[in-house]
């Protein structure tokens, strides 16, 4: 691992020297052109973050709507959720993105609904649905990790299913759900790069466009990776903090 880092550092350093084939000038902040390029690339952050946050929020809602009936002991109630989860998990993100962006409007039109799905919402819908199958499973394992005795005790003091979930099960399950859910957010951030292929102006798309005009893929994609790295590291840091906090709470 250490060696790998050393190698990577060496490669980059060598590139910075005048003798190499690196051309850092494309993103040299001291020149006007370099600075313009950098701001163009960094401007993608807003879209990437907005896209990820909205998709994650939707995924959390859809996941709950799928997870709750999925845990029913009645097979006819749980079956649709099981099918949804198995089905969605099996579809790769990119084909789903194409289907939602190019196919869904056609389907809707044939049903008499005319909607234009732009790149942003196409990506949001796809990411949310694709991720919701995983979110649902996170909810399920979190809720099922709460001992059955809790539900039984709630029944004996007359609580309804909804009250049991709200006052007894979810407040306890949330400690086990939040950390993996936050982890799942990292996955969404990374997968949001796919939105570039349908023209969504986020980090990856901006990098692609700059590569086309500047012919400097190595430098631009290196910066792109660093952009994601910084974003993900910030989120990881937050996730780890959350895990520590939740763990500490549990033992109290």
């Amino acid at each position, binding site marked *: 691992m250490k060696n790998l880092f050393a190698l990577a550092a060496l490669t980059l350093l060598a590139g910075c020297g005048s003798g190499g084939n690196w051309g850092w000038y494309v993103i040299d902040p001291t020149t006007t052109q370099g600075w313009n390029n950098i701001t163009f690339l960094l401007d993608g952050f807003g879209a990437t973050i907005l896209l990820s946050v909205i998709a994650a929020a939707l995924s959390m809602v859809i996941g709950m709507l799928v997870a709750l009936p999925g845990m029913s002991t009645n097979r006819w109630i749980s079956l649709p959720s099981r099918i949804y989860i198995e089905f969605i998990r099996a579809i790769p993100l990119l084909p789903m993105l194409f289907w939602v962006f190019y196919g869904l409007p056609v389907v809707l039109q044939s049903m008499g609904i005319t909607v234009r799905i732009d790149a942003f919402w196409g990506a949001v819908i796809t990411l949310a649905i694709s991720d919701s199958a995983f979110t649902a499973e996170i909810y399920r394992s979190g809720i099922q990790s709460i001992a059955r*005795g*809790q539900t039984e005790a709630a*029944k004996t*003091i*007359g609580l309804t299913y909804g*009250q049991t979930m709200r*006052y*007894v099960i979810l407040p*306890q399950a949330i400690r086990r759900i939040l950390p993996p859910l936050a982890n799942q957010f990292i996955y969404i951030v990374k997968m949001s790069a796919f939105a570039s292929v349908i023209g969504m102006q986020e980090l990856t798309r901006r990098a692609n466009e700059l590569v086309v005009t500047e012919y400097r893929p190595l430098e631009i994609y290196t910066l792109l990776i660093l952009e994601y790295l910084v974003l993900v590291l910030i989120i990881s840091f937050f996730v780890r903090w959350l895990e520590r906090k939740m763990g500490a709470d549990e033992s109290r």
Partner: protein
Amino acid sequence: MPDDAAPDHANAIEIKGLNKWYDEYHALKDVDLTVQHGERIVVCGPSGSGKSTLIRCVNSLEEHDEGQIIVDGTLMGDAASVEAIRAEVGMVFQQFNLFPHLTIMQNLTLGPMKARGLSRADAEARAMKYLERVQIPEQADKKPGALSGGQQQRVAIARSLCMEPKIMLFDEPTSALDPEMISEVLDVIVDLADSGMTMIVVTHEMGFARRAADRMVFMDHGAIVETGTPTEFFEAPKTERCRTFLNQILKH
């Protein structure tokens, strides 16, 4: 319970021809049991004999496959009847099943406020009344995890009493306790028995049974093998299986 209380239904619990299977396993076999108002029943028998399953059928934590259960005049059947029956029946579990994320006070007021619609003030007054009865009013603001096992079980009893049930079910209430805490819990149950509460207690505590029971029920392999007053039961067990069981547990 004195006669002038005039219960409008002849018996507290009537169980007729009860059968239950877990797949192939015949867990309850043609169980008939009638419990009068104010009667204290102790159910004993080897593990796996169906004692817990039987009392868990009384408040429908387990569903039975054949037979009738009538609790205080209500025949168990649809969801409404189950709700009506649970409103009359309190239950105390082997593992306490307190809600660990709530304070003792919140554990006690949750049912009265959410299921019965009591105001917070009324629910808290009621909770304090029963906490005093189980002799731990000073613990009201702590979380269950800060209490000893014996205290937790007494809180669990108080939580059930806060719903003001007519019938109490105890499922091995002292089996998870350290030996030195058993008597403090049994004392509370005896006190409750003396107050005229109808109760079914599943337990191996034969000293308690002698002190508190009106009638002993001995179960083996899912069937009621023998019933009788504690004197008959302990002095002159009628069946060989019962004699063997008593010899085994009284040996220590």
